[in-house]
């Protein structure tokens, strides 16, 4: 395609129009894209193009279904759109405010919410771990939370598929979990920040591993190997990162899916028979309607419930799929507590992906006498960029002035360990609608969150353990900080319509042609980062829907 001048800025006007979409592997090129008329009733309208939406769109389009996928955010070409700059790259995040309350109000925005084609994977940190098998039946096997309506053996198959699709680079033998096949790409060299974790783990006698990461350690198609520039959290400008934007999105386009960027879906329409008929979306300055036989919501744990609630109508006065008052409930995060230490040597943690070494000891050890909590946590080495780390320091300590500048001057000698800690699903941790409206006139989401006692015991345990580990590795002047990461749940799947929103296939109990496919389906959070699980689950749901299509039972 033409290498002509870049026509316009991605944030200002949609790029995927006129029968073509951005070629994400070029600086200004295009790939062909099939388009559908608004009046055409497409097989599937998918809202959101992250882990859930992009994978499902690919599966459905590859099976011959007509698909239109919407994303509220822009369609980037990383090679020419992504700068090496923290402030500039804020543009990847969902920055329209959500109202946050509860006993432990959540930070949203850059902390957990993307807004662009590819979803939150354009800025995720690529840590790609599988759930512990027992977690899919944590109520029956481990005595807490709820069971998934899914068997771990089936998930294991889809984890392998997801790891191939995202070309995960990982160690030859991974210390935890059932025996597994090799990772598609060899592990990355562990940076100095990761070696601090390794040293500490060896001193305390627990296992550690080079983190399995979704960035390639050798060339793959048009993706060059990772160059260890360390800016993964603000967008990978080389395309080494195997985000949805450079893996599934090109596949979906090649299979005939249409993608509409800068297209905010504000409402799902329903017909007199109670089935959904399509979506209303805002694009290019106006509202439009796309008709569809099925609608899939894949906007992640805040926007998915928000859209269902905002689509209330005479027949469904409390929102769609909300007959049992489950939409928006059981929202979870990962506790993201950290310990930071100063080392004697220069670590320079800005080099390489931020989390190159990990430890899942507390996800698998059930018998240690110090364990005083249900669930698990993993932790990883850290490498925050300067603005990010300075923000952590002032938030945690209130430091300012020369004291702060001196602390920041030791940036190159810092190391840190941070957990991905499981929190329990609680009905009152939830998404509702606020009375404020956004620029589209749509009620904004209100997020209410509070930890339970178990959550607190878990992160306190982690702080004690990580402090010991950092000291064992030679760290001094320790600082503990608290935060959260990731979102899970909010529209959970299950086996009982009274306590869940969808069945195991993501089909809403209440409306047979309304589906959900994203992180909001997760009934529990597990002690690992969620993206790989969301991708695997979406691939599983995709295969199930395709099979139903063949049998005529969609």
């Amino acid at each position, binding site marked *: 395609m033409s290498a002509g001048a870049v026509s316009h800025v991605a944030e200002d006007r949609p790029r995927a129009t006129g029968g073509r979409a951005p070629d994400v592997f070029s600086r200004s090129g295009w790939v062909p894209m099939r388009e559908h008329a608004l009046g055409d009733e497409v097989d599937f309208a998918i809202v959101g193009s992250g882990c859930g939406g992009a994978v499902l769109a690919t599966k459905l389009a590859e099976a011959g279904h007509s698909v239109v996928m919407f994303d509220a955010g822009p369609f980037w070409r990383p090679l020419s759109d992504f700068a090496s700059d923290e402030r*500039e790259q804020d543009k990847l995040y969902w920055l329209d405010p959500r109202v*946050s309350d509860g006993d432990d109000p959540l930070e949203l925005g850059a902390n957990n919410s993307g807004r662009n084609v590819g979803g939150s994977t354009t800025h995720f940190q690529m840590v790609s771990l599988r759930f512990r098998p027992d977690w899919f039946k944590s109520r029956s096997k481990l005595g807490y939370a709820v069971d998934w309506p899914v068997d771990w053996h089936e998930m294991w198959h889809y984890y392998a598929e997801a790891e191939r699709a995202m070309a995960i680079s990982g160690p030859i033998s991974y210390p935890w979990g059932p025996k597994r096949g090799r990772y598609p790409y060899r592990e990355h060299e562990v940076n100095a920040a990761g070696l601090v974790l390794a040293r500490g783990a060896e001193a305390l006698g627990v296992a550690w591993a080079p983190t399995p990461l979704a960035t390639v350690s050798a060339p793959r198609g048009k993706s060059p190997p990772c160059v260890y520039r360390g800016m993964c959290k603000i967008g990978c400008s080389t395309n080494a990162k195997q985000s949805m934007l450079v893996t599934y999105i090109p596949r979906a386009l090649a299979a005939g899916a249409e993608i509409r960027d800068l297209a905010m879906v504000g409402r799902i329409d329903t017909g007199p028979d109670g089935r959904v008929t399509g979506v209303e979306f805002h694009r290019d300055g106006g509202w439009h309607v796309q008709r569809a036989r099925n609608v899939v919501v894949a906007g992640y744990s805040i926007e998915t419930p928000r859209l269902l609630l905002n689509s209330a109508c005479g027949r469904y006065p409390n929102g769609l799929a909300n007959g049992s008052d489950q939409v928006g409930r059981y929202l979870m995060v990962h506790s993201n507590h950290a310990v930071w230490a100063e080392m004697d040597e220069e670590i320079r943690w800005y080099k390489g992906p931020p989390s190159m070494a990990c430890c899942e000891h507390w996800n698998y050890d059930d018998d240690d006498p110090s364990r005083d909590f249900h669930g698990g946590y993993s932790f990883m080495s850290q490498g925050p960029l300067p603005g990010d780390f300075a923000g952590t320091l002032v938030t945690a300590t209130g430091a300012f002035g020369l004291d*702060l*500048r001196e602390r920041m001057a030791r940036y190159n000698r810092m190391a840190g360990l941070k957990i991905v800690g499981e929190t329990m699903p609680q009905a009152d941790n939830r998404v509702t609608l606020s009375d404020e409206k956004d620029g589209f006139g749509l009620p904004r989401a209100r997020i209410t969150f509070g930890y339970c006692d178990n959550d607190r015991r878990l992160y306190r345990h982690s702080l004690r353990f990580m402090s010991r580990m950092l000291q064992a590795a030679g760290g001094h002047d320790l600082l503990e900080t608290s935060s959260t990461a990731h979102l899970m749940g909010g529209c959970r799947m299950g086996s009982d319509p009274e306590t869940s929103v969808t069945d195991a296939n993501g089909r809403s109990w209440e409306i047979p042609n309304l589906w959900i496919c994203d992180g909001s389906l997760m009934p529990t959070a597990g002690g690992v980062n969620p993206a790989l699980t969301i991708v695997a689950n979406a691939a599983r749901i995709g295969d199930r829907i395709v099979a139903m299509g063949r049998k005529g039972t969609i």
Partner: protein
Amino acid sequence: MTERFSAPYRGYDVLDKWDTPSFNDQTRRVLRGRMDPPPRRFFSDTEWRVLLALCARAMPQPERTDPVAMAPFIDADLHAGRGTGTRRADMPEPGAAWRRGLAALDAEAVARHGRGFADLDAAAANAILRAVDSGDLADPAAWDGLPAQRFLRETALKHIVSIYYSQPQGMSEIGYGGPASPRGYVRLGTDRIDPWEAPHGQWPDR
């Protein structure tokens, strides 16, 4: 009290890499746009004076004749309505929080010293910031329900430092590699550095 900043990476400047493979066009464009502070459009004269004083206390730069400017970028962000994605239920939106918080800081100064925040010497201003951070308020009514510590840490300081460390001077003084695309790094191990990184820092304790 004299203030001195001892920089471990004196002489290192990320901008020396401007014409090397560590910088690409889009990064150069962004940094060029950051060289000229934008005009003030959001804050009033009175608010502006308090803001300048607050930035000077948050990030004092006694060693620089031409200190890094932060206030104009905060003003521009608020003028543009740039958000963070979160509004705590007990906080107003960022622009209103800033206005109320700056007015309250000024009121704290008047209540304690009979002068505005911008007219205090460094020690007095620092003492007020520490008091506000610990919830010790001399004029609670001026805060009008705004959580003082949260305003100071999460609205004000966090915003100020995000601007300071986005400027090449901020990156350079901590020995950060700075822009790194298309060229990243090769030497990842402990104490190992690429030729295009800052040389080892001068550490008094090593």
